[in-house]
């Protein structure tokens, strides 16, 4: 059994209440931090721990915190990004739904480290019921004195607010999130300036993922050095993985970074193998935007080494033969999956969610969807594969925010590894759906 640090108490009844959470050692990190530590010490502990952003990019959290500008007389903010919208990712929802106090505890400790008097939790619009759970937990925390003025009798005062988004994927991009939080249209800002210098209302702001903030709690409790012992190389600690797709046991798993992908898919502790005794065909390892990999490349790297669930190992080989850990949205597909149809679903999503600010993404995402629709209709030509490849290359890296890349990478990877499926449809002028069901009724006449 791997070590669990975030959701080890998720089976305890009523762990969402302050009373039970406190009885299981909750809010110890706040006590330790506020009474015995200086803010900079916490940042140092986070740096030592090697914690990397759990939202997808994997940027070292300690470094992000140290970039925060600290001008005199200007407020600083901590914003928690709970706009978890990446298809295939549902770990933050699980954490907030089951143990909301873990997030609030992390918010208080992190805010103390950053010197933020106010923090915001921006929750995805579709998670309105989760927002109620978190709000109830915040009310409990205020009543018990964990939030508000002079927490634990110290000088540190802190207010935490919940803001529910409007349900747009783009608002998960940190600058679009800040715009939305300010009450504006959720369009990504052009960087620089980065939020660490000019973020919310032009003030220095740190935006962190739910899981990242929750991970600060065990880091403060056990010390950064102890936390860094878990994992391999620069991938330290534990990570929540949202496993979905054609596996026997879909769900949220907390893994120690460094277990093998094969172990994760086939062991009974985690996914429990592919359902109905089918064979694995492909895996999207980190949410819909990361490149899809066929079985032989996801289980072993191009060099023949077993692939591990770490930031580095999954990225081994670049995009030619590798992928990314991303947000940990692990989607396994069995042999009966049509990659083209799957790609269409993704492309349709990114087309729908493009904000429309910059031209390549606004026009390109819709174009890619229309071409993929042609494949599903069986009217595509072989030249359409080349065209798709060209369009994605003209979107990738040319947009304001990473949504362009998120839309381009899955297309590139599907063509790179499964080109034969596209060509087959183009040659036969017929799309044969090999999957068992077509609930979404994607093929339009």
């Amino acid at each position: 059994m791997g070590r669990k640090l975030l959701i080890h108490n998720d089976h305890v009844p009523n762990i969402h209440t302050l009373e039970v959470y406190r009885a299981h050692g909750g809010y110890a990190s706040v006590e330790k931090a506020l009474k015995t530590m200086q803010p900079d010490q916490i940042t140092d502990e986070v740096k030592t721990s090697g914690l990397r952003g759990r939202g997808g990019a994997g940027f070292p959290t300690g470094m992000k915190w140290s970039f925060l500008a600290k001008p005199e007389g200007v407020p600083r903010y901590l914003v928690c990004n709970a706009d978890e919208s990446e298809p295939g990712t549902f770990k933050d929802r699980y954490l907030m739904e089951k143990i909301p106090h873990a997030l609030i505890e992390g918010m208080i400790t992190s805010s103390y480290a950053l010197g933020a008097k106010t923090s915001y939790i921006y929750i995805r619009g579709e998670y309105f019921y989760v927002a109620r759970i978190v709000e109830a937990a915040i009310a409990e925390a205020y009543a018990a004195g964990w939030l508000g003025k002079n927490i634990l009798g110290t000088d540190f005062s802190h207010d935490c607010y919940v803001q529910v988004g409007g349900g747009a994927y783009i608002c998960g991009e940190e600058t679009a999130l800040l715009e939305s939080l300010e009450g504006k249209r959720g369009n990504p800002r052009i960087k620089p300036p980065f939020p660490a210098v000019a973020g919310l209302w032009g003030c220095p702001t740190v935006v962190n993922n739910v899981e990242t903030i929750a991970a600060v709690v065990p880091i403060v409790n056990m010390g950064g050095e102890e936390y860094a012992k878990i994992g391999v190389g620069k991938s330290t600690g534990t990570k929540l993985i949202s496993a979905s797709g054609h596996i026997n046991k879909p769900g949220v798993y907390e893994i120690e970074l460094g277990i093998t992908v094969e172990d994760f898919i086939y062991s009974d502790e985690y996914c429990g193998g592919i359902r109905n005794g089918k064979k694995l065909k492909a895996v999207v390892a980190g949410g819909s935007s990361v490149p899809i990999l066929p079985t032989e490349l996801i289980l072993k790297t191009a060099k023949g080494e077993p692939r591990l669930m770490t930031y580095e190992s999954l990225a081994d080989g670049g995009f030619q033969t590798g992928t990314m850990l991303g947000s940990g949205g692990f989607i396994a597909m069995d042999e009966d999956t049509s990659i083209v149809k799957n790609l269409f679903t993704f492309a349709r999503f990114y087309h729908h969610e493009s904000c429309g600010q910059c031209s390549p993404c606004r026009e390109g995402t819709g174009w890619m969807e229309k071409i993929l629709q042609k494949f599903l209709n069986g009217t595509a030509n072989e030249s359409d594969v080349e065209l798709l490849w060209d369009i994605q290359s003209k979107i990738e890296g040319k947009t304001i925010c990473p949504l362009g890349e998120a839309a381009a990478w899955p297309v590139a990877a599907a063509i790179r590894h499964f080109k034969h499926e596209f060509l087959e449809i183009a040659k036969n002028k017929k799309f044969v759906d090999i999957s068992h069901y077509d609930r979404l009724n994607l093929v339009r006449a």
Partner: protein
Amino acid sequence: MKVTIDGIEIDVPKGTTILEAARMIGPEVAPPTMCYYSSLKTSGGYCRTCIVKVTQGSAANPTPMPKPVASCRTEVMDGMVVENTINKDVLEARKGVVEFLLMNHPLDCPVCDQAGECSLQDLGYEHGAAKTRYEFPRREFERIDIGKYVQLHMNRCIMCFRCVKVAEQLTDNRVHGVMHRGDAAEISTYIENVIENEFSGNVIDVCPVGALTDKTFRFKSRVWFTKPVDATCDCKKCSGKVRLWMKGPDVLRVTSRKNIWGEAEEFICNTCRFERKNVSDWKVEGPSQIHRSSVISQNHYNHLNELKVQIMKQQKALGFMDINKRP
């Protein structure tokens, strides 16, 4: 700060963007722009036509920037090396952007009042491909009426956001903006409101395409058959420095004066633009300087006259017979 663009070095003050530095060197290295407008704050960064490759970040940190950057929103660093027209990848990427911009554009240039002074025409001519690979029906929007002066053709819009910035920064209450998102995003007024503002006419001048045109000039003449002259008047609301577009003795259109980058030098008020359509309303300064290569210049002769005088001087110096006294 020293910055090198396409092999040409220039010294610029701190805070200058790559685009501004390139414009200081000259039009031959300046990247094309569709959404950037120097007098409008926070404009730029959307259309992606001005992307360039930074092959050396700065003298202190020479690593190249991983992705192409929007030159209009990237400030130069000391020792930065930028590649624009000499970089194949940049040209290819720009071609891609032009294709994206033209994909849903109706290409109704024969009946568009902007034709002849349209940035998208120029951009397509200089950087685009001869043929589109887009085979699906073009996007169409429902028409809305935004008032008696300005005509909105949403189908032609390329979403440069310039008009939104004008309304935000020039007028006191903005009633139009972007509705919806993605490729359904459109410039519109909320519940088909009418734009009523003394400076609203400037959205016509900043629009790079024919999405916002002058209703008082609609279908009156092709722009290249009108002759631009600079004129002034005593206006209480604006500077009164305008450009009149004449056909014979008639003033067909009044616009702001534009510089070589196609940007208005000074914004003008609606009274000057739409109401003062008689020559007697104006004090005419003389013909406007229009670049010789512009289609607009084809109907006004001062450059040709200058050229003729120059040629005749040269010929005379060389001992040629006077062209007018030839037997």
